């Protein structure tokens, strides 16, 4: 396979791969590295790539697995930074802006979901894959995916409402 054909396959998927990596790894740099690593992996097995029925799903699966591996590695070798909600009576302008920024709050809510729900939410609501493809990428049954997705959606909304009411009432 030539570089050109490979790029034609990868280009439409690479942003999705990056977003998936970003959802799991949080840091932009780490997500960029992960995407590059995965593309390199795919390039190395470029001869086989045509034999896969759905290259996009395959690429997403590799990304998912790579990121989960990275997370495991980090947990083993580093201290885990546990997010603490330190109460501060003196609210700085910075945090005030952050609190008001609902998109950022949603990002944090999504980040707090279990990894599986996070991934399925990413695939369905952000990338808009259909259930069949998600089942392929996640290697799960479609019913299990629906259950996880439903849990994720409900959890996000619940936390969002809680947060909203907290400010008002």
């Amino acid at each position, binding site marked *: 396979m030539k570089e050109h054909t490979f790029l034609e396959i990868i280009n439409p998927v690479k942003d999705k791969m990056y977003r998936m990596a970003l959802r799991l790894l949080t840091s932009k740099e780490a997500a960029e590295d992960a995407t590059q690593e995965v593309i390199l992996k795919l390039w190395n097995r470029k001869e086989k790539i045509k034999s896969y029925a759905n290259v996009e799903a395959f690429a997403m699966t590799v990304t998912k697995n790579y990121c989960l591996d990275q997370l495991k590695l980090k947990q083993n070798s580093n201290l885990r930074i546990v997010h603490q909600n330190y109460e501060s009576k003196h609210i700085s302008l910075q945090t005030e802006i952050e609190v008001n920024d609902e998109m950022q709050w949603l990002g944090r809510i999504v980040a707090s979901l279990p990894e599986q729900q996070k991934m399925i939410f990413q695939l369905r609501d952000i990338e808009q894959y259909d259930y069949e493809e998600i089942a392929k990428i996640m290697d799960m049954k479609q019913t299990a*995916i629906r259950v996880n997705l439903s849990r994720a959606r409900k959890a996000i909304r619940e936390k969002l409402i809680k947060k909203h009411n907290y400010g008002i009432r």
Partner: protein
Amino acid sequence: MELGKIERLLDRYDEGETSIAEEKLLREYFLSEDVPEHLRSYQLMFRFSASQAEEKLENKPKVVSKRNWYSWTSIAAILIVALGIFFYNDSSRMLNDNGLGTISDEELALQKTKETLHMVAQIMNEGKSDLVYLKEFNNTKNKIIQID
């Protein structure tokens, strides 16, 4: 779209039962219109999903940066060559102007050259005479290591 239909779709959305097409309807509704207060949280969620889908892998392929690097080095090279030519001309002119006391009389020139070479030879000989001791090295070495 009427509110009742949206609410029915949302119930199914919460259960993960909506199809891609139905979710598209919901997305369009929530991204375009003003929504009632009790549906605000859904609107935020759809907005969030839409905003997240715009995130792009930004880093350019390395080839581009390399090309960039080449262009900078070529600019630097051109500058160096240009400045080099400029200064070279300048300094050669300065040398000519000074005149380094070139001797025009041939006899005298020969004399001077001879003197100079003689001096060099003399210094060389002086230096060489100090190296006679080096022979001792070989003498000692031959006592220890015998090469046949």
